[in-house]
């Protein structure tokens, strides 16, 4: 029996994901013409990533009131890789994943979703609000240059945070490599974040970086670890370590520090260092085989309305894709600390100082990247 199984496996191997998506020449314009709203939307997102009040989500309630579409909101996504590993076998089997809209960060998983053509291209004719209100955060995407698939949900900055009581003011990535903070430096365990900060510290533009640059960054980061400067490579738990005083300085996400400041940790400061920082986006995308694609588009169009975006931005405190929401947060919602925060509504000048992760277009370049940076994180 084992022999038979072996022969069976030898014959077919494990199939890849290529050719399990939509045909390259599929006529999406004609397809969209035939689609109608079904009055339901299955929406998968991340925990604590939408406005909440008394267990309800006012923006979603307003959406249902305005359109009659009921939203099943499911904050089930904890991180990109594990969510992708859940949905990819289903998409590979050419079946629907049960969601009409998912929120996923730019990175290797999103690249795979696009390259496998596992996403439905947006019908921009049904997104007038996007056209009217989307800022450059949502329209200037290196990973999706023609905004074919991705409607930015929120964006954020990965830079550094420090405990001012311990360190005093800091404005340079050099502090991450300073032996003075030996054992008190936190780095992120996401290899995109780690590698990119290495490139920035060397003054290399991540987006035009080459394999040779990546090797230099890996050498710098390896030395940082071997010198005992890095305490740990953290997932989101870095924020707890900063709050507990375990860290003096850490790579950090903008929204986390904003929320920590508001919840009793004013000593934590977030700074975009002089070498620059990374702007990432979490994108709403419509997975292939979605049952209610029109309802998904309706919701995208709805949340690009400045008054709705103001509700969301005022609650989640990440970078909003709709600059026109700023006066509403300041005025009607009376929350100037959010409205005037460069971390929620960055100026165009701020945005110019930010770059994206290097886009690894092929699995070969992706393997090059991971095989350089994974061994640093997991040594």
């Amino acid at each position, binding site marked *: 029996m084992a022999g038979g199984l072996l022969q069976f496996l030898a014959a077919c191997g494990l199939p890849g994901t290529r050719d399990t998506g939509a045909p390259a020449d599929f006529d999406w314009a004609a397809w969209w013409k035939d689609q109608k709203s079904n009055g339901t939307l299955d929406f998968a997102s991340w925990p604590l990533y939408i406005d909440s009040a008394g267990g309800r989500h006012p923006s979603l309630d307003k959406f249902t009131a305005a359109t009659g579409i009921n939203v099943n909101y499911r904050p089930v996504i904890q991180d990109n890789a594990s969510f992708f590993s859940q949905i990819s076998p289903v998409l590979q089997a050419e079946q629907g994943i049960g969601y009409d809209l998912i929120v996923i960060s730019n990175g290797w998983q999103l690249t795979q979703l696009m390259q496998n053509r596992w996403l439905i291209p947006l019908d921009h004719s049904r997104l007038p609000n996007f056209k009217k209100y989307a800022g450059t955060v949502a329209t200037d995407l290196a990973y999706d240059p023609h905004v074919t698939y991705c409607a930015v949900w929120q964006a954020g900055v990965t830079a550094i945070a420090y405990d001012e009581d311990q360190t005093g003011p800091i404005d340079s990535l050099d502090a991450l490599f300073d032996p003075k903070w030996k054992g008190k430096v936190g780095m992120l365990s996401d290899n995109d974040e780690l590698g990119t900060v290495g490139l920035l510290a060397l003054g290399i533009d991540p987006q035009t970086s080459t394999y040779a640059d990546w090797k230099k960054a890996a050498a710098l980061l390896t030395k940082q670890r071997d010198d005992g400067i890095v305490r740990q490579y953290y997932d989101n738990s870095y924020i707890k370590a900063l709050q507990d005083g*375990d860290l003096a300085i850490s790579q950090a996400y903008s929204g986390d520090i904003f929320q920590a400041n508001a919840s009793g940790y004013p000593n934590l400061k977030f700074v975009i260092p002089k070498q620059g920082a990374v702007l990432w986006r979490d994108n709403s995308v419509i997975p292939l085989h979605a049952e209610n694609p029109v309802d998904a588009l309706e919701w995208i169009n709805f949340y690009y309305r400045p008054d709705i975006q103001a509700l969301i931005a005022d609650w989640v405190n990440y970078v909003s894709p709709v600059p026109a929401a700023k006066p509403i947060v300041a005025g009607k919602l009376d929350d100037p600390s959010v409205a005037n925060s460069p971390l929620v509504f960055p100026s165009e000048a701020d945005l110019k100082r930010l770059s994206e992760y290097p886009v690894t277009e092929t699995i070969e370049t992706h393997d090059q990247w991971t095989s350089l940076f994974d061994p640093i994180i997991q040594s």
Partner: protein
Amino acid sequence: MRSRIVPYLQSAPATLWLAIFFVVPLVSIASISLMTGNSIEGYDLTWNFGVYPDAIDQYSAQLLRSFLYGGVSTALALIAMYPVAYWIAFRGGKRKSLFLFLLLLPFLVSFIIRILTWQFILSDEGLVLGTLKDIGLVGENAHVLSTPFAVITGLTYDALPWMALPIYVALEKIDRNLVEAANDLYASGWQQFRRVILPLSAPGVYAGILLVGISNIGDYLSAQILGGPSTTMIGNIIQTQYVQNGDYPVASALSLILMAALLLCVFVYAWVFGTRTIQEYA
């Protein structure tokens, strides 16, 4: 004729269970480990046996570390729990079940919460270090989290009941008349323990070591939550390769290497200490 078939028929459910839930997955993993390719193009079985030496070469540090941490934590759990099990079995009196329940009580809380609590206890300004720093016993920059010590602490703590229970069962089964006879023959307390109780409890110790050792060597959560840059265990590597990188061949090869190494340890252990104890326990 009939009598010859019956035993096979009776064992059929167990055989089937093993075939479906053990043999088939094992053969699949073995064949996946020999494939080459990637998640987009797919994987073909190319009998790439080179994956094994490559994986051992690349991850030898994490493999050895897993056995070191697993071994140390198992030994610590044994040293900590043998006296506890002994006390409950011989001195517990009428309240034995209450004591056993108390032993298990913390473990009704989810595993993740317990490990996270250790993170809280061991943090730099936490219960232990904060106090020690305040009274000046340790330096301001001392830290325990993110060190091998923290990982081994987590592993040991989580192993406590799994070590205590089998030892307790073995001690409980000891015929008290044997201990009394040793006493009548003028054996001292220590001699009674050394010559009578300890040998008779060996099957429990053996079961406890196997139970704890195997799960601790393959553990990855303690290292992930309590560890630092150089405390990665082989379980962490397997998880990253499988979930994050979709590198199924390397993940499968590492799983099999770990399994083979564990089996080897069990055989060496049985060879040194004898298999009699296992059979007795069964």
